[in-house]
């Protein structure tokens, strides 16, 4: 199997770049591209203490696998891909998503990794609730999902 997709509950293992890179490595692969998303301390001018990620996990994992299959169709069946998204509350600096793509050459690895994050951002059933330093919390405004069929 050359795809790994996962929604991981915070409180268990934390998301880990080394694990992702190790998964996408293979003797024929010369390039690995990795992306991590991290909770930052400021959003739209408000000081952030942490973010809660709400995830409809079975549908999210189904979607991740579909997006990976699309990437393999575009950039090669031999692409190795890793997707893991956190579920739960993270403090500033916490890793919300780890993506990696491994391939013989770097063009495909970069393109696939970028494709994964852009598609996951727009298509995944994931919601962010920001917790501010002033004690307030707010669900981040998003955009509507598309239904197919």
């Amino acid at each position, binding site marked *: 199997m050359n795809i790994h997709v996962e929604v991981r509950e915070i409180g268990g293992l934390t998301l880990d770049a080394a694990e992702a890179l190790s998964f996408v490595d293979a003797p024929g692969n010369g390039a690995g591209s990795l992306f991590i998303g991290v909770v930052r301390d400021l959003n739209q001018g408000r000081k952030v203490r942490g973010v809660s990620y709400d995830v*409809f996990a079975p549908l999210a994992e189904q979607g991740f696998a579909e997006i990976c299959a699309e990437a393999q169709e575009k950039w090669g069946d031999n692409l190795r891909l890793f997707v893991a*998204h956190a579920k739960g509350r993270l403090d500033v600096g916490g890793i919300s998503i780890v993506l990696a793509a491994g391939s013989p050459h770097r063009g495909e690895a970069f393109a696939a990794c970028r494709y994964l994050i852009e598609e996951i*951002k727009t298509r995944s059933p*994931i919601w*962010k609730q920001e917790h501010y330093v002033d004690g307030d919390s707010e669900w981040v405004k998003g955009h*509507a*999902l*598309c239904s197919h*069929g």
Partner: protein
Amino acid sequence: MQVNVQMFGEFRVLGDCLELTLPENSTVLDLREFIQNQVGEFELTELLKLSKFADEKAVLTDTSLCKNNQILAILPPVSGG
């Protein structure tokens, strides 16, 4: 028939899930209107218009038929990743 509708994002204010009893042969649109009538708050009814329903495999269209004991989810606009 019974359906279990899981709440996500802002809909969490209604609880983690709603156990609803619907007429036989209800569609997702019927479910949507059922919830719309139960939720009094203006902001949530507006949000509901922008939201989709899904099962564990796919986002559903409003014409999809609901099944007895089905687990559904209400998906407000997403902001994740």
